[in-house]
């Protein structure tokens, strides 16, 4: 009798190991969504349709959770913020400090690729960015990062990046409050040209995307510093790397 099996397969255990990826188990449906709906007894409120209700809920949550020393979650445009006093966790290995997602393109190319007007800061020394990164896929509608090298008000990080201004359409989503929490980062309410804004400061945190199924898109994970986030003209805008809130607000207010 000829040996029907490859010589490298020696034990039944090894064969079963090799069989595993070949077995077609049914794909996992979305479990978390229906479970949370059942636990809440009603469909979740979405910020897309009711931004002010969501905001009010966030404030109520802040008051409740602050009293209970638990977590709060805030949302603005297409960004979710969370923090809490929970146990700090080790940094995920996927993080690359200073790496800005997207491909390097010219400003003109970026303008042609997204369906929103790209705003530029009109402050002295800024204006045309040193580099432009375009992510055509994330979030839907694309996102543009304007990257500036170090300036006196925003020193370079390890990757030589001084300031990053990120712009993308605000009406993206699944519009749910983010679930991730962090200790040591402050979130202060502020404003940019009369619009509500948040200043995330006091410690490094992560910026990343979640896909439609709620999974973290690992390659987008990036360690970032102090960040100002606000919404204007249907865009979600971030200024990251400014030395202080005052500087960040000056840059923000100059975007045209």
């Amino acid at each position, binding site marked *: *009798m000829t040996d*029907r*099996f*490859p010589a490298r397969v020696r034990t*039944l255990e090894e*064969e*079963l*190991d*090799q*069989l595993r*990826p*070949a*077995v077609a*188990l*049914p794909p996992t*449906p*979305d*479990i*978390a969504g*229906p*479970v*949370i709906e*059942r*636990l*809440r007894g009603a469909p979740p409120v979405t910020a897309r349709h009711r931004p002010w209700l969501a905001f009010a809920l966030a404030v109520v949550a802040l008051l409740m*959770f602050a009293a*209970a020393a638990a*977590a709060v979650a805030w949302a603005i445009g297409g*960004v*979710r913020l*969370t*923090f*809490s006093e*929970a*146990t*700090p*966790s080790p940094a995920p290995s996927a993080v690359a400090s200073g790496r800005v997602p997207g491909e390097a393109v010219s400003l003109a190319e970026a303008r042609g690729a997204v369906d929103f007007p790209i705003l530029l800061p009109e402050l002295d020394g800024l204006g045309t960015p040193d580099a432009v990164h375009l992510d055509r896929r994330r*979030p839907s509608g694309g*996102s543009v990062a304007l990257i500036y090298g170090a300036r006196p008000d925003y020193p370079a990080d390890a990757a030589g990046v001084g300031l990053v201004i990120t712009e*993308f359409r605000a009406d*993206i*989503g*699944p519009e*749910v409050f*983010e*679930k*991730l*929490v*962090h200790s040591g980062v402050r979130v202060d309410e502020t404003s940019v040209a009369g619009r509500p804004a948040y200043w*995330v400061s006091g410690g490094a*945190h992560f*910026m*990343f*995307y*979640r*896909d*439609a199924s*709620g999974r973290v898109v690992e390659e987008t994970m990036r360690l*970032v510093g102090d*960040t100002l986030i606000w919404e204007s003209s249907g865009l979600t805008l971030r200024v990251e790397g400014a030395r202080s809130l005052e500087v960040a607000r000056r840059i923000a207010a100059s975007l045209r």
Partner: protein
Amino acid sequence: MVMVEARPLDDIGLVRAAQGGDMQAYEELVRRYQDLAFRCAFLVVRNAEDANDVTQDAFVRAFAALPRFRADAAIRPWLLAIVSNQARNHRRSRRRREGLVLRAGEDAPRGDAASAEESVLDRERRAELLAAIEGLREEDREVISLRWFAELNEAEMAALLHRPSGTIKSRLSRAMQRLRVALAADQEARTRD
């Protein structure tokens, strides 16, 4: 797709936050473990719709049971025990029992003739193996598929099957022995043909 400014918590942090009533933290926990729970539920009840019901019910129950869970304990066995309890309620389901099959394209040629031949052999052998597992009695089939297809360790299988670890170890050992016997019998039958 949402952009997030945050820091992912570990399981302990999420459990503590969820115990404090943070639904976002609980949702994150469910997302972390829904794949494992669904796969195990399917391997026990063998119907995707039933497995979906079982997994959802298990996570709803788990939330209610969360205050009694010690945040620094291992979450996987605890969840699997709850999945198991829910799965028992579905054992009498009338839905069709779904057998395990190989993925489509497993026999796709890989280029040269030699590797194509090897691929067909691999495919045949895999089909034989899977058929032999599916032909085992339920108890053996369950323990082998949980060990090899859901990649559970003995403690997790023990939690899921509500049996002591030692019992699981000997049950798996006996199931593997019966699988060897079944495969040898298949081989013998083919040699005679």
